[in-house]
């Protein structure tokens, strides 16, 4: 897969760098495990990454190989790690461990890889810098404000010691041209020290208004350096003489607080990364020498999803005297990706880097060698036959003499490697890792490269052990058990197969499979199998498909798809893989895989271990169209919420208090790990104000208050992280570091992981116990709870009132007093009073209509009052009152001049009414006849007399008072008289104007009625709903509205799932109470079971007569 692309970029031939297969490619390596610092070997081949667990050596030329791991467990985050830039010590790496610095020699075996331990600081070391010329010298800076220089020939004590005394040192750098000069940053300023001139800074560079994060000396000018700061500026200083005020030569402003700003190793330019913001990119800028300028970036490397913590330059060159160096940018980000970015030629030009210039000094050539393999094992050649392949398996002795074994799962590692074959692109912002590749490579293999394929297939097929995976050479050795015993089919036979892929795979030649000789299979059989496999591979290769999986399936004795068409279709897995990636759940934390295996059982991939991690998301799902998104912005799930139901209930759900605590803990954890970013703004203000002494910590403290994770993934990773940490804690061994007097400085600074802040308990057993207890308690308590709570008391609209309120009656004042009583009964004094007042008002009006005496008759006064009433109820959000008032205070019906031909005429209402109800009520109540008569008389009255009295009066001639036990509203249920006092013969509605409400308000009134009707509908009060709705046609309706309103629309029939209220009614067809699905005709109000209605209407249609079952003559069906 990995091809060497010579001749493309041309000038660097094969030479000693021929294997630099990854140089011109973009590459991403996912490395979990809390890496905090990275450094690159001067040769550009190895990268060393440091975490609390130790250091990892990764060979960039063969990123598919799992890294070498040198364990050094500490509770402290590693602040810095640096490769020695010197040829003599090019295998030396220095890393920090709180107040100590450790110097590793990668040439040595893991058990004794530490060459020196530098112990001189009292508090955590923040930065280390190798001397540019003398390989024995280096300097360190620390929180204890001191800067030390060391000579490794006597590493017991520093050779130079100085201190700022006030602010802790964040950075220290040697002058690249003058080996006696040191620069260190403290708080807002940079101090320059001359080792020959004692312990007082000879120059202090002041000018930044916030913390200085980084200093960097100009590689070409002895007296120039740059510093970058939280105040969002990069300053260039020149201290040669007094040309510049305060030595400040340039001030370059950026849009972000600058975390690292350094001179480019080539050309003239600056490279900077933001502490926060800046879209997590690396900015390459040209230095234009203007005194005040904005960062003029000529190139932006964009693609990381989280803050970049450091960047490095990987370089190669072929000549010693001619500068033909070529560079690759290496970045490490909090998103756990190590990325390699190729540099386009245009970039070199933009920063004035002309290649192939003669040099006045020789470039150092470092041996291009990797130390990513354990040294000892490299001497023992793996001959591929007798020794089971092992991954480097170090035993590192901690100072307490306890052994910790670590395994790095090769498959997991592989799945974290992403190589992009595209060469340098010339666009301004490049995202090499754009995952659109899926679309582009439609016709090619499912996987981008062999590494990916092995990773995915390996995870899928647990029964296959990968003894050896060498992606760069295309060799894979697998062992598995297959049903190849000729005699006993059910007996599985152990098979060891060597698969070799050629470099063009999946194109070109099919991979060769070689099955090792075995006692249980005859050689002939092996030969046949190999031929079969070759055939199979050929089929897949012909359709340009990857074939590792079918080959292995064949060896396992399972059925393999051989039809080329179906092969092409079966491409679902890549999508699945991407989803998993997207969720961040498939990435087992290979570093923290605590499963300690037996040494004897050391076959590499005991895959039973790695399939239980991804549990949170099922493995079998596959959503083919789910294209991976670069940044998953799914927010943190809501664990607690409250939703109002229409009926005024509040549905609440909570997390249990227990898990809530966890959540909080997680939040805290997260705050810590990401604090520096979020709190930038707050910090900026604060930092400007704050005293120098407190600056360092302020940045982080200000953020701890209220930040929580934003995205789902963040919270997930926290969860897993926490779980792992807990797990870790229980297995943790006490690390007796030589001198424990220092607190965990780096945690205070970085707050990277809260669980490590306290010292780790000595007793492992105790921790286990704790863990057990924790799990127990978790299972006991409630995970979650849903509750339905009644909050109807808060809501002014009441169901009970809705049922009892009347909209019409004998007279309006009576209606009002009825409603007042209803409200009173429910203890709603204010509403009751309101009804009373309106009632009185109306009463006086109707009574003294001729005399014009009462105050309320005064139209304006009355109207003003009503206006105020409306306003009050609007403010108090009492929809019910608003709707009731806008019903009661208008007279319903269409105006006479309105043409109502469109309405289906009723057929003799009065007759059928009578017939129906005599039957029904005659049995139970003797005087019901009267009322029926009365009721029908109402209709006949209205029909015959066409009189002027108000509808409300005409409706119920005091009937309710005279007939005890038969409250009129029961009978009418607001349905029988559905408002439209309709005069069939002349097709006119009769009404009497009330003129209480402003016509202009009608629109709003309609809105109130509509909304209230909707509310009633939700409550299941069908009849009440249509009663309210009919008021929409009234004296105030404008003609346009009336035209628009279609009776069908307004009284739309609705199928209803059972409601409380409807149980009070009987079906018109079968006379049984209706409690479930019902059918209500909103014109005549007849109520039927849905089933009965079906039967009735079917029969009716057959007979050609579509009248209503209630016998009212309404042709309900005509409405629908």
């Amino acid at each position, binding site marked *: 897969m990995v091809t060497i692309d010579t001749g493309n970029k041309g000038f660097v031939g094969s030479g000693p760098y021929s294997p630099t297969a990854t140089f011109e490619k973009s590459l991403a390596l996912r490395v979990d495990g809390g890496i905090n610092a990275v450094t690159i070997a001067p040769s550009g081949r190895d990268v060393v990454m440091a975490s609390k667990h130790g250091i990892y050596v990764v060979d960039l030329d063969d990123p598919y190989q799992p890294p070498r791991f040198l364990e050094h467990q500490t509770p402290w985050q590693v602040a810095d790690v640096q490769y020695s830039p010197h040829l003599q010590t090019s295998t030396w790496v220095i890393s920090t461990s709180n107040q100590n610095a450790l110097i590793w020699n990668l040439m040595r075996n893991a058990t004794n890889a530490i060459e020196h331990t530098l112990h001189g600081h009292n508090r955590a070391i923040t930065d280390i810098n190798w001397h540019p010329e003398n390989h024995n010298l280096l300097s360190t800076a620390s929180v204890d404000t001191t800067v030390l220089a060391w000579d490794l020939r006597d590493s017991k004590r520093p050779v130079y010691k100085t201190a700022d005394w006030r602010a802790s040192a964040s950075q220290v750098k040697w002058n690249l041209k003058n080996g006696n000069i040191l620069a260190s940053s403290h708080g807002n300023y940079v101090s320059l020290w001359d080792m020959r001139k004692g312990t007082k800074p000879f120059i202090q560079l002041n000018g930044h208004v916030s913390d200085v994060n980084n200093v960097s000396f100009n590689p070409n000018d002895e007296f120039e350096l740059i510093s970058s700061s939280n105040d969002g500026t990069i300053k260039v200083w020149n201290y040669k003489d007094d040309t510049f005020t305060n030595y400040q030569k340039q001030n370059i402003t950026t849009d972000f607080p600058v975390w690292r700003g350094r001179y480019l190793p080539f050309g003239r330019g600056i490279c900077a990364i933001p502490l926060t913001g800046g879209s997590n990119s690396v900015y390459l800028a040209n230095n234009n020498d203007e005194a005040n300028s904005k960062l003029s970036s000529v190139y932006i490397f964009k693609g990381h999803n989280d803050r970049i913590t450091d960047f490095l330059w990987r370089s190669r060159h072929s000549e010693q005297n001619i500068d033909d160096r070529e560079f690759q940018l290496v970045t490490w980000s909090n998103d756990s990706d190590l990325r390699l970015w190729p540099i386009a030629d245009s970039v070199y030009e933009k920063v004035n880097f002309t290649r192939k210039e003669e040099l006045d000094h020789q470039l150092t050539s470092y041996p291009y060698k990797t130390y990513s393999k354990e040294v000892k094992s490299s001497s023992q050649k793996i001959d591929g036959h007798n020794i089971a392949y092992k991954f480097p398996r170090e035993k590192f002795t901690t100072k307490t003499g306890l052994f910790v074994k670590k395994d790095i799962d090769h498959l997991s590692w592989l799945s974290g490697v992403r190589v992009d074959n595209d060469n340098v692109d010339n666009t301004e912002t490049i995202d090499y890792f754009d995952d659109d590749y899926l679309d582009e490579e439609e016709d090619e293999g499912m996987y981008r490269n062999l590494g990916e394929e092995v990773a995915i297939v390996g995870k899928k097929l647990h029964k296959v052990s990968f003894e050896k995976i060498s992606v760069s050479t295309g060799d894979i050795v697998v062992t598995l058990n297959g049903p190849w015993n000729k005699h006993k089919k059910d007996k599985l036979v152990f098979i060891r197969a060597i698969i070799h892929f050629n470099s063009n795979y999946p194109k070109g030649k099919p991979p060769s499979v070689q099955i090792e000789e075995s006692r249980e299979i005859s050689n002939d059989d092996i030969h046949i199998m190999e031929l079969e496999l070759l055939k199979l591979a050929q089929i897949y290769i012909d359709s340009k498909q990857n074939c590792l999986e079918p080959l292995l399936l064949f060896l396992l004795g399972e059925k393999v798809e051989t039809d080329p068409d179906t092969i092409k279709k079966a491409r679902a897995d890549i999508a699945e893989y991407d989803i998993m990636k997207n*969720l961040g759940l498939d990435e087992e934390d290979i570093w923290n895989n605590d499963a300690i295996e037996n040494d004897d059982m050391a076959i590499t991939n005991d895959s039973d271990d790695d399939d239980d991690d991804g549990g949170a998301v*099922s493995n079998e*799902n596959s959503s083919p169209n*789910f*294209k991976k*998104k670069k940044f*998953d*912005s*799914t927010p943190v*799930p*809501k*664990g*607690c*919420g*409250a*939703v*109002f*139901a*229409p009926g005024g209930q*509040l*549905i*609440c*759900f909570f*997390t249990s*208090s227990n898990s*809530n605590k966890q959540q909080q803990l997680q*939040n805290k954890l997260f705050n810590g790990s990401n604090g520096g970013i979020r709190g930038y703004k707050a910090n900026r203000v604060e930092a400007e104000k704050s005293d120098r002494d407190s600056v360092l910590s302020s940045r982080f403290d200000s953020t701890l208050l*209220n930040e*929580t994770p934003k995205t*789902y993934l963040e919270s997930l990773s926290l969860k897993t992280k926490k779980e792992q940490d807990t797990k870790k804690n229980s297995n943790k061994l006490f690390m007796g570091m030589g001198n424990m007097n220092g607190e965990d400085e780096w945690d205070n600074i970085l707050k990277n992981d809260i669980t490590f802040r306290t010292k780790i308990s000595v007793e492992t057993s105790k921790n286990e116990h704790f863990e057990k207890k924790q799990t127990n308690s978790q299972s006991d308590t*409630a995970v*979650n*709870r*849903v*509750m*339905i*709570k*009644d909050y*109807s008391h*808060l*809501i*002014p609209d009441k169901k009970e009132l809705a049922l009892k309120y009347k909209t019409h009656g004998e007279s309006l004042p009576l209606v009002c007093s009825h409603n007042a009583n209803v409200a009173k009964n*429910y203890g709603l004094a204010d509403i009751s009073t309101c009804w009373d007042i309106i009632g009185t008002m109306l009463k006086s009006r109707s009574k003294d209509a001729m005399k014009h005496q009462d105050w309320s008759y005064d139209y304006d006064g009355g109207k003003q009052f009503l206006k105020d009433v409306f*306003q009050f109820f609007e*403010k*108090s*959000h*009492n*929809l019910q009152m608003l709707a009731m008032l806008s019903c009661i205070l208008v007279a319903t019906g269409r105006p006479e001049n309105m043409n109502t031909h469109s309405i289906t005429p009723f057929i003799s209402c009065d007759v059928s009414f009578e017939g129906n109800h005599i039957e029904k009520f005659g049995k*139970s109540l003797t005087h*019901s006849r009267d009322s029926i008569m009365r009721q029908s008389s109402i209709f006949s009255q209205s029909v015959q007399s066409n009189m002027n009295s108000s509808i409300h009066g005409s409706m119920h001639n005091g009937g309710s008072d005279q007939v005890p036990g038969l409250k009129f509203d*029961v009978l009418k249920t607001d349905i029988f008289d559905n408002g439209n006092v309709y005069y069939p013969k002349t097709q006119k509605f009769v009404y009497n104007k009330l003129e209480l409400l402003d016509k202009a308000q009608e629109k*709003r009134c309609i*809105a109130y009625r509509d*909304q209230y009707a909707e*509310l009633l509908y939700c409550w299941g009060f069908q009849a009440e709903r249509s009663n309210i709705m009919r008021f929409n046609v009234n004296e105030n309706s404008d003609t346009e509205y009336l035209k628009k309103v279609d009776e069908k629309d307004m009284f739309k029939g*609705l199928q209803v799932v*059972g409601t409380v209220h409807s*149980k*009070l009614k009987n079906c018109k067809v079968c006379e049984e109470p209706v409690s479930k699905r019902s059918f209500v005709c909103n014109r005549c109000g007849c109520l039927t079971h849905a089933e009965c209605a079906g039967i009735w209407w079917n029969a009716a249609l057959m007979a050609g007569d579509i009248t209503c079952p209630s016998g009212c003559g309404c042709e309900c069906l005509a409405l629908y």
Partner: protein
Amino acid sequence: MSVIASAKKELNNDAGAKSYGQGETQVTISNAHSDLIHDAVLDYYGKRLATCSSDKTIKIFEVSQTGSESAESGSDNPGYVLLDTLSEHNGPVWQVDWAHPKFGTCLASCGYDGKICIWKENSNKKFELISVLQYHTASVNSVQWAPHEYGPLLLCGSSDGSVSIVEFKDNGIVTQPIILEAHQIGVNAACWAPITFNGGDNTSKRFVTGGCDNLVKIWKSDESSPNKYVLEHTLKGHSDWVRDVAWSPSVLNKSYIASVGQDNQCIIWTNDQESQSNEWKQSFLKEGKFEDVLWRASWSLSGDVLALSGGDNRITLWRENLQGKWESAGEVNE
């Protein structure tokens, strides 16, 4: 008749004697799901409760209507019965919403897997999956049915930055979804305007969205072309991700939108319905910030009480007083 009368009387007495439940708990369902619950919604009639969770399932409960019923039948009756457990999603299910009953007993759900599922109750009180939509390319965070007058229209907001409107014809046939790029990083919530909202032109459909760009946006349908929605307002006010937006379902003299966010704040946006300006005014629900991030806002049907919930596991209720100030109406106790 006597039956009816007595029934009515009973209701009278009952209701008369019973003072309103002061936030009393009617039903408690514990540990229905094995993981966090993200949404719980009662249907129109308060009969069906749908809950959804990180355990990838949706559960439907039949809830007895009143607290008194369950009280009468003693402690044996918890007041709810599990009807069905729906598993179709491959990831956490974020939100569910009941359709208006005129479309049948229908439930829409959305989840992390980017799916939108539509479920319908059959005669055995079981729920059948009638439609699965998957056109969003990331987690779908919000799903809501439109006011029923618009027909069965579904509004979905997704972390892929878009909102979509999709219409269901009969039998689960779906129209081509209308997809709008709404918020750059992701849409966290979307909510329809009530049909009674008057924004100058009464015929436009409107909805509001909130997203990761800290903005609240109001969209309206463009009547000239049926499938087009245009941005009407962009409301700036939050300083961090907007987590939920809720348009008050009732429109009196003002229309309200509540938006809550990761910035620990709740903003009430009001639109005066009496003036024709169609402007949204911003006001903070309370001075100073809440103690924790806010996740969810919900209006009561008549728009007078606002329930807020957030990261601290607390639910607070708010009501506007006559002076137009928002004051606390209590806190829900677990």
